[in-house]
């Protein structure tokens, strides 16, 4: 069978599977990015405002998660999390849960790593905002929450956007590592296709093109957003 037919959408084509792999890659990346943003935000907040031991802990989190290979983090969660949950469940007297789906473990693993990087991004973003603004907010009697919503977040979005774009690209590429625990995302699908048709060059080339499409689209999206944000900022000032 010719290569194009193999990659196409015909009855023997892998097109549909490859596209669903792309979709799953996007889903894992989006979930891990969201986990990373929430946890990273909390970590940055703890790192800036927390008491000394909490600050040391968050610093240690950053050092460990940014110093251990992502592959090991995925393996650790994949094998470690179920036994942790099982012992927790048995301590509560509940019946043992089944295996966690690869999507959950993989997304969480990439998300935990992403959080370590995003925490650094947010910390840098806060540092880039003049202290006088916070003093002014306090002088006006703004509560912490209001200060966060009206002053910190709008400016942080604009300042950290390029760096967050970088983190997103890393997330997207790290999601390929989740294939090692069997999630049928783009990398896995193309490997399975390569194996069962004995055409690794063809299928891995297809995967390269699809990943390039994904990263190019994200790059374009972040650039457009960045341009719009900086334009808004210029008009406002």
């Amino acid at each position, binding site marked *: 069978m010719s290569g194009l037919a193999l990659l196409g959408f015909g009855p023997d084509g892998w097109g549909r599977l490859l596209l669903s792999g792309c979709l799953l890659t996007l889903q894992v990346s989006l979930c891990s990015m969201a986990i990373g943003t929430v946890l990273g935000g909390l970590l940055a907040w703890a790192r800036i405002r927390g008491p000394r031991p909490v600050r040391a802990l968050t610093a240690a989190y950053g050092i460990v998660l940014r110093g251990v290979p992502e*592959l090991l983090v995925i393996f*650790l969660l994949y094998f470690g999390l179920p036994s942790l949950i099982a012992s927790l469940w048995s301590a509560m007297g509940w019946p043992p849960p089944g295996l966690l789906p690869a999507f959950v473990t993989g997304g969480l693993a990439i998300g935990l790593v992403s959080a370590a990087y995003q925490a650094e991004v947010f910390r840098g973003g806060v540092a880039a905002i003049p202290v006088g603004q916070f003093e002014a907010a306090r002088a006006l009697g703004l509560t912490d929450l209001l200060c966060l919503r009206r002053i910190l977040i709008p400016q942080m979005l604009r300042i950290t956007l390029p760096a967050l774009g970088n983190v997103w690209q890393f997330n997207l590429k790290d999601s390929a590592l989740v294939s090692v625990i069997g999630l049928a995302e783009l990398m896995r699908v193309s490997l399975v296709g390569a194996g069962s048709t004995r055409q690794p060059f063809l299928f891995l080339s297809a995967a*390269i093109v699809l*990943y390039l499409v994904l*990263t190019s689209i994200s790059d374009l999206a972040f650039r457009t957003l960045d341009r719009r944000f900086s334009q808004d900022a210029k008009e406002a000032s």
Partner: protein
Amino acid sequence: MADGSGFYAPTLAQLFGAVPVTLLILLVSMTLATLLAAVLTACSASASPGLRAFRAGWTFLFRGTPLILQIFMIYYGLAMLPWIRWGPAWPAFRDPIFCTCLALTCCCSAYIGEVFRGALAAVPAGEIEAGKACGMSRLQLLRRVIAPALIRIALPSYSNEVIMLAKSTSLASTITVLDITGVAQGIISKTYRTLDVFLCAAALYLLINAILSAGLRAWADRLSIDRPTPKAVEPL
């Protein structure tokens, strides 16, 4: 279990045995990637549109795809091409360590090349003009003015890329290389003590990265001898 020390000591010893493989991959790829990145940076500063397009394409390809995919492509995919499979380079492409080093070199050269390119743009134009005005040749200018400034500016980001590279060496285990991660998986298949073994491996990677980043920071500190910035002359 009671055999705490009885398990950890031999496991760590076995994992330590794999450190040379990981370090070999790391050092070879780091050196070659840095050299290639310098070439790419020269391409980006070149007047020839062909060279600039080559650099842009290289960067686009290797930064836009996952490293694990590049490793699989080089190890499994290229073997399908007749001129590789039956060519003179086949003994090299059959070797998983060579393939890992090749993939890491290509991938990291793209990232490090971007670091160098950014640093090159940050070298003060006045310094280069001053060098030219002193009658320096192009080589002298590069060696005495551009390279020292560029290294100083690029070093912090370069260190980040090296740490990334060190972590990426673990992907070698996916194509049967017995590096730290590969050996860890081997021990697990015999002992089934997944968590303990992976934690030991993680600790080893942390140690390697700590040493790497301490060394690079020491180098950066030595380079950035903060010479007192010339104070503005007090107006009389």
